[in-house]
């Protein structure tokens, strides 16, 4: 997934961490793409398994958690050299992905559960 070059952000400063804005932005883009893609996959899976209502939402949160863990692992667990705060990598595309996820759940449910 994240085959993009997530180069490190820190400048040569010892005490005050500064970030290269362009790299930071491209890392955020990678996170966004990963989340969108995973929310599509999660939506399709939830639709196929027939999860509706609260169960579907729980599946979405689970998928997002897995995505966050994978992103953290890809960044080598040292989040601070790639992003400026934990919140960004954990929570960033959550709501945007929710809409996509709901859409795909509906789509797959309605297409597959027909007479």
């Amino acid at each position: 997934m994240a085959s993009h070059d997530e180069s490190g952000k820190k400048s040569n400063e010892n005490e005050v961490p500064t970030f290269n804005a362009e790299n930071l932005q491209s890392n955020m883009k990678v996170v966004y793409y990963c989340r969108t893609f995973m929310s599509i996959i999660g939506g399709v899976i939830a639709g196929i398994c027939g999860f509706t209502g609260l169960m579907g939402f729980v599946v979405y949160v689970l998928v997002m958690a897995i995505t966050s863990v994978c992103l953290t692992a890809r960044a080598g667990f040292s989040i601070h050299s790639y992003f400026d705060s934990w919140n960004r990598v954990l929570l960033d595309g959550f709501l945007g992905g929710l809409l996509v996820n709901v859409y795909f759940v509906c789509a797959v449910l309605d297409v597959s559960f027909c007479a």
Partner: protein
Amino acid sequence: MAEELVLDTAIRDWVLIPLSVVMVLIGILRYFVSKLMRTSQLPDSKIIKEGFVIIRARNLRAAANFIPVKAFRARKVYYTNEENGLLHVPKGQAQNPQAQMFSDPNMAMDMMKKNLSMIIPQTLTFAWVNFFFSGFVAAKIPFPLTQRFRSMLQNGIDLSTVDVSYVSSRSWYFLNLFGLRGLFSLILGEENATDDTQRMMQMSGFGFDPSKSLGAEKDGLDIVQHDWVLPKFEQRAEAVLRKRLSS
């Protein structure tokens, strides 16, 4: 009230899937059309100069702590000086760039084109959906909703006992509209014309760019507190070098 309706395969084949496919194709078409219709407008040199001044002031603000106090103050005065500081815009001139921008025919045409390319496909598709696909249950939303959404989601269906989760094709259209934005950002890359909210933010921010942001940058520079974070950095650099050389 809670009967389990099963959708006919005919609805699936002829309503749900074609509508989704059509929306995806229209999105792709709109992306390519907007790419083709993008006229290369000659940028106004004054606006570009002001843009660069703003960028320089912003860099100064961001990196203020890395330069000595005197240097920072000298630069700050250069920008915010009352008489001839770069960021200081006298009151009379402040309105001009904005008025100029809106009366400039190229700019107005451009904005109108962007607006049209957004609105027309949406309107056409919506009219098409309303005309052909109304009056029957099209899809089922997987989570339960309250009765208040009935008028919004079930407008073609005149039965009041049908569960609110069963919606008409109009709401399927809207669901497509919002859900496919994420998909478009994946398959079309960054520059896709389907994200309305981004476009509107860009358009509303564009008109006020020169005059107001100069004032904003000036205020920002005025309130920066300088905190010199590199005291004794020569000694520290010496220590680091010694350590490197000795190990």
